[in-house]
């Protein structure tokens, strides 16, 4: 579904949701040893960048 480029709102929404999961103990899907940060938002952004994000956007059908 997410064939089109994400809008900035979709990006923010998805990163926020993933960061919340990470902060509550979800296992990162990327190697974070080289990231130099344990901020869940940074990890979520890296996941998105590496295309390892386990979440997807659901666009409004209206």
């Amino acid at each position, binding site marked *: 579904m997410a064939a089109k480029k994400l*809008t*900035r709102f979709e990006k923010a*929404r*998805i990163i926020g949701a993933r960061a919340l999961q990470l902060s509550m103990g979800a296992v990162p899907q990327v190697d974070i040893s080289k990231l130099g940060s344990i901020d869940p938002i940074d990890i979520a952004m890296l996941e998105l960048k590496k295309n390892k994000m386990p*979440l*997807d*956007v*659901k*666009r*409004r059908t209206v």
Partner: protein
Amino acid sequence: MDIEKVEKVVKKKRTKFPEKLIYEIADAAERHDLNDKELDELVKEIKKANQRAGVENGEAVGTVAAQSVGEPGTQMTMRTFHYAGVAELNVTLGLPRLIEIVDARKKISTPTMGIYFDEEYSADEEFVRKIANRIGKIILNDILKDFNVNYANMNLSIEIDEDKVNDKRLEYDEIIAKIEKAFKKVEIDKNLLSFEPTITDPKHAIRELRLLADKVRDLQISGVKNIGKVVIRKEGAEWAIHTEGSNLGAVLKMEGVDKTRTSTNDIHEVEKVLGVEAARNAIIHEAQSTMEEQGLTVDVRHIMLVADMMTADGKVKSIGRHGISGEKASVLARASFEETGKHLLRASIRGEVDHLTGIIENIIIGQPIPLGTGSVGVIMKEKK
């Protein structure tokens, strides 16, 4: 540079441009004599700029448009409420005019038309003057040389000024025909005409005679309905007519009139004669020229959004109580605007259901609003 070539380059870059943009690119390429590589680069840059200019899904375009039109509007109030004369004609401008447009008034305060002519006639002053006199209102009083009320004989005699008739490019026979049709008791001897009143009661004879005198003087011998004064102006190499009052339907039927450029500032008339799409364009044009005339520039897209909202239903409707805000589907959205009690009471009597799809409803309820980040949902990706 031909259009197809540009289209091919655009297709290669995997984008889609509006038709007008493609024509402009082709035009620019022609003017600057671009080679293939340069054209490629141009299209690439335009693609970037075009993407930057677009809005993303979920942006609050309505709010931005409201602010972008509203802020310059506050600037207008300070130096407004006076009329600026465009060549002897009074035209409402500034904030009052803008309010008129947004309210979609049926009767605007100063309807006016700009009439232009086809190429073959536009430089022909004689032709334009003739048309102008057919459009503009001319009454019998305008072409009189002499006017006498004779109380002894109980009649009135007038003399038509032939010079004035010629000057106004009128046909003498037509005038006479009009007079004969309007008044039964009339004797015609070339330029000298004499009228007799129909007296029912001898007591009111003088009054009848005076009434007849007024009637004779005010007899309209030429002109289109709803149009008053006309002004003929030379604009560059061509002649154009500007009118007080407006009747687009009748004027467009006249010979020699350029149907593509002749316009009116009455939006409802445009809708009636040419349809909603034309009305939409008229709203955009009127709103923008009103702002521009005040030295304020607003991005067209804001005005276009307003015009789109006003015409989306297939008929022009106003913004406000009787239009967009008053016809919203949600009870809560309507109640938050005006007449809160009335809407809530009516909705409860009818048992209306609110589906909470809009912004206002969700703010009232205290939920995240479907806008920006709030307009997207999150789901788990399926495992590959």
